């Protein structure tokens, strides 16, 4: 096996031009320092340290109850940390009430004031600042234009559709030009199609205004699409903080691999490191040892590991594929999704692996059918070794 030149490789197809987190001289806008939040009986946030940079679209991702919302609410000032510090632009926010913090939040329920028109809702925050009327009017018009809601200025919230309400909530939260915009599950209440459109609109607005966005979501697709970096949280702790590409292609552990996208986990033990730099893994059920291209240097022979392979990085064929990584099994289920076809293949030991195939042509010669014996293969650099 030839040694691959890795100097020009990057993980994932993400925007490369913006990466202040790799710049040692960059100072974070938001800094969580060992932040802990205990409620009477449970620890919601457990010793979280995290830096978020200016202009960043940052996303806290995790299942419900993982502490992501609590972490955000502490930044907004609705909860006080039980321990640790939160710094914004270098200043400690301890004791600063929510109404004096230069952050604004877009609530999951939007929390529009039902007795006020769209215009009044957007103007609310500016009025609290005591700005002159004409300044407020100009800014409100500007915000409504930004979210394309000028025509609905006089409407009350209940006269708007879900998507329109979402826009008003966004305009209201942005009207005060906050240093950080907090978005709590901003798209959760929208239907799928609208959600996808809105994702890109939010990204455009973020780039246009240059405001730092901190979003909380449980939807990995949403996080992957929009965020510059994602922090995956589980039971109050940060599991991995990285770009979407790294999260997906180089998950740190099983939880991340499993929570973000689909994954096949293959149990095994480290056999040896090949001279080519690949790891040889003994995996029961495989047709021979697995070869994995993983940069991890600290693996010991005999160590139990898991090899994680994304379904789209596997192939399903009738003949055994060339190369080292192969499994044999029987087609158990076929799910046709239009753009993809999902094969669930049952190995002889009963494990089921998921393989997806992009439907690049309309007609397929001799498609693979149910109950056929097939081979699964993948390339060494399609897999990642999870040691913990």
């Amino acid at each position: 096996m030839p040694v691959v030149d890795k100097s020009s490789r990057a993980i994932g197809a993400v925007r490369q031009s913006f990466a202040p987190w790799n710049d040692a001289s960059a100072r974070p806008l938001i800094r969580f320092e060992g932040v802990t939040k205990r409620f009477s009986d449970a620890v919601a946030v457990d010793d979280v340290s995290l830096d978020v940079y200016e202009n960043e679209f940052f996303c806290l991702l995790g299942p419900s109850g993982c502490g992501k919302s609590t972490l955000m609410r502490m930044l907004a000032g609705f909860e006080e940390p039980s321990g640790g510090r939160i710094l914004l632009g270098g200043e400690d926010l301890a004791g600063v009430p929510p109404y004096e913090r230069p952050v604004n939040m877009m609530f999951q329920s939007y929390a529009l004031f039902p007795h006020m028109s769209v215009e009044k809702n957007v103007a609310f925050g500016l009025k609290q600042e005591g700005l002159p009327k004409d300044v407020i009017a100009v800014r409100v018009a500007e915000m409504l234009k930004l979210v394309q809601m000028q025509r609905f200025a006089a409407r009350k919230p209940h006269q708007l559709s879900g998507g329109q309400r979402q826009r008003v909530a966004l305009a209201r939260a942005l009207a005060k030009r906050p240093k950080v915009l907090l978005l709590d599950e901003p798209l959760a209440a929208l239907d799928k199609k609208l959600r996808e459109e809105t994702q890109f609109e939010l990204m455009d607005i973020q780039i246009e205004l240059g405001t730092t966005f901190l979003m909380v979501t449980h939807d990995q697709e949403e996080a992957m699409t929009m965020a510059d970096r994602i922090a995956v949280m589980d039971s109050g702790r940060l599991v991995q903080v990285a770009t979407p590409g790294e999260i997906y292609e180089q998950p740190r552990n099983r939880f991340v691999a499993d929570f973000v996208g689909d994954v096949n986990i293959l149990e095994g033990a480290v056999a040896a490191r090949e001279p080519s730099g690949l790891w040889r893994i003994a995996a029961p059920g495989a047709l021979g040892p697995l070869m994995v291209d993983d940069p991890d240097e600290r693996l010991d022979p005999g160590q139990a590991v898991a090899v994680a392979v994304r379904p789209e990085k596997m192939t399903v064929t009738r003949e055994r594929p060339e190369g080292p990584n192969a499994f044999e099994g029987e087609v158990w289920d076929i799910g046709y999704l239009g753009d993809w076809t999902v094969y669930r293949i049952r190995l002889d030991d009963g494990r089921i692996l998921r393989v997806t195939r992009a439907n690049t042509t309309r007609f397929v010669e001799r498609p693979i059918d149910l109950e056929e014996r097939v081979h699964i293969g993948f390339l060494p650099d399609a897999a990642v070794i999870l040691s913990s």
Partner: protein
Amino acid sequence: MARDAIRRDEPRRRGLGRRLVIGAPYLWLGAFFALPVLIVFKIALSYPELAQPPYAPTFDLAGGWEAFVAFLGELSFDNFAFIVSDDLYVAALGSSLRIAASSTLILLLVGYPIAYAMAKASPSLRGILVAAVILPFWTSFLIRVYAWIGILRPEGLLNGFLMAIGVIDQPLTILNTEIAVHIGIVYTYLPFMVLPLYATLERMDDTLIEAAQDLGSTPLKAFWTITVPLSWPGIVAGSLLCFIPAVGEFVIPDLLGGSDTLMIGRILWSEFFSNRDWPLASAVAIVMLVVLVVPIVLFREAEARRLEESR
């Protein structure tokens, strides 16, 4: 689909039963509200007489059409003219409205914090608090008002307590004053103010307050700009529920008020029972009804229109 099919079949089958169900409340209201009001109105147009019943003319179907015309001819609006011309009634009505209005204002000031605290309490505690608000109803209203006599009289509990702790050295005259009437009304009607307020405050979305604070509103300002306007339906409902019966209140001013506490309910009672002037008493009742109902109907319609417009 199946549900649509059932619904389409329904009109054929619904008939008498459906109409009876819809008609029942109308029947009830007709028999126990509209008819009595009509009877009272008719009595108000009569004149008193020492007879049984103590007014004339009486309605007699046996006399035929001519008797009916004669009956109509005898009815007059004299009683209403008398009420309007006599200072006593105007003053009594005025002071009733004044006492009811000031009591309602006090009720609102006392009831709002109570309802607010109840709505903010933990869900398990809320049920207990609601029960506590309703609890006084388990004892008769009359007995509770009597109890206030024991508390408020010169040698009563309140004066005894205040003198014991040395705040005063002469007993205060509270009983038989308008203050005592206010205390009585506020005490008795408090649940009617608290419960509708609680109902609207409890439903309110707390994230609205968080949103207001997030946008730079202090908690106090958020309360005035968000909580109060959104609890407006509860404020209106509670105030009407207290104000309307308070205007016609008889027991409280009679037991706790002094001889100079003029309230229309007491006038009505004395016209009816002491003077045995049923027609005049009825006319007072009708005037009170008009004074109360007309503005309320207009107000409610304006509110409904406002809601309609904002919808």
